[in-house]
């Protein structure tokens, strides 16, 4: 028991550093994923046919291949065509574009489940198609996509662990270093697993509170009214 506590105290600073890196990668990638995923999702549903196909190909590419291969392509492959990225940048870009593909798909199915009458009523008021999408359809779709989006955020926290393979010192990267330094892989990985669980738990709490706050009064699931 003493040994375990000693070990925990020794590895704590590096694991906290690693946690910071993991959080940074997850947040930046999710944000990039949202910035890219939102227009991609909208374009998939409301864009011209050729655009829908192009965006569909992008989504298939990122959903259909292992994220590790995507990371290697970005980090080791892009320099061949003259784009050299730092480790962190490569992590942001890969996970961001990967997440964008998933976020776009969540948004797409949410957009499709907003009832058709909403668009018709908006157009009947004299809104243009894009005005209607922006002020009427998207606000409803974003709410519908929120549960799936929460899962994406949680998945992203765990996905980030692939970046240790390009030597980014995230939580997983630190774990690997510490495990060999102290010859205690089981203990270290157990501690790290607990770190991930806590991160996921906190993320989950934050997101469910956002979901609750964005809920539309009177609609199902709102037990209070």
């Amino acid at each position, binding site marked *: 028991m003493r040994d375990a506590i000693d070990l925990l105290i020794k590895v704590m600073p590096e694991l906290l550093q690693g946690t910071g890196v993991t959080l940074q990668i997850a947040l930046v990638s999710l944000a990039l994923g949202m910035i890219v995923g939102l227009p991609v999702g909208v374009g998939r549903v409301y864009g011209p046919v050729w655009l829908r196909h192009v965006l569909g190909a992008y989504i298939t590419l990122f959903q259909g291949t292992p994220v590790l291969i995507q990371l290697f392509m970005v980090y080791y492959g892009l320099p061949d065509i003259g784009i050299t990225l730092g480790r962190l940048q490569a992590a942001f870009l890969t996970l961001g574009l990967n997440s964008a593909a998933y976020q776009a798909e969540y948004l797409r199915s949410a957009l499709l489940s907003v*009832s058709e*009458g*909403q668009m*018709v*009523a*908006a*157009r*009947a*008021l*004299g*809104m*243009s198609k894009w*005005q209607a999408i922006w*002020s*009427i359809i998207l*606000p*409803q779709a974003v*709410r519908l996509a929120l549960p799936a989006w929460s899962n994406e955020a949680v998945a992203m926290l765990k996905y980030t662990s692939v970046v240790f393979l390009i030597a980014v010192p995230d939580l997983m990267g630190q774990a690997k270093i510490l495990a060999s330094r102290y010859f205690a892989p089981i203990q270290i990985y157990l501690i790290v697993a607990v770190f991930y669980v806590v991160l996921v738990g906190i993320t989950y709490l934050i997101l469910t509170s956002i979901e609750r706050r964005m809920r*539309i*009064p*009177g*609609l199902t699931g709102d037990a209070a*009214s």
Partner: protein
Amino acid sequence: MTSPILRIEDVHKSYGALQVLKGVSLTVQPREVVVLVGPSGSGKSTLLRCINLLNPPTKGRIWLEDQEITAPGVNQDRVRQRIGMVFQEFNLFTHLTALGNVMIGLVKVRKMRKNEARDLAMFELERVGLADRAHYYPAQLSGGQKQRVAIARALGMDPHIMLFDEPTSALDPELTGEVLAVMQKLASEGMTMIVVSHEIGFARQVADRIVFMEGGVVVEEGTPQQMFEQPVHERTRAFLRNITR
């Protein structure tokens, strides 16, 4: 004689091979209330959606006041602003309160300032008797209240003509009265209206003219008295007898 507010000339509408409207002509005068009746599938909804260009006609022409709105190059969004539409299924924006539903068109389309829009929206909600429900969401309103909010939302755009597509058919019978009362009040204030409805009481009392459609054409039109008492066509007689029973 005043010039008509709406003139529909030989309008056709097809969906692929299916011909829904086969040459409809109709003229509506300012302040007139036209009730449009006909069997299911006769093209009533399609005609309304042609008028506000939600589904433009495949052939034929439509004038709104002095403008031919079916002419190429017409700004359709602008045209729709002048035509209010009320749907059977209400189609209120579910993420907005009653007030928000009325305000959004004022802010986004009429480009009014927020507080100006709020005042006008409140005024429109008062007109339909729902000022006290301004901050309720659609899911918290009864069907009749939803439809009255939908009417207020359309009125906010200051339409020159209002189209109603079976505004009471999705309502429980005890809720139709409040909606019909609002529509009757609108009519008495001089709003030009085309109403698809099989509410016979409303048609008798409020309509200036009843138009009977079947199979994508207007079979017969006339005052409620003519249409109910002495219709020319046997089809009209049979249909109206059926719905008055």
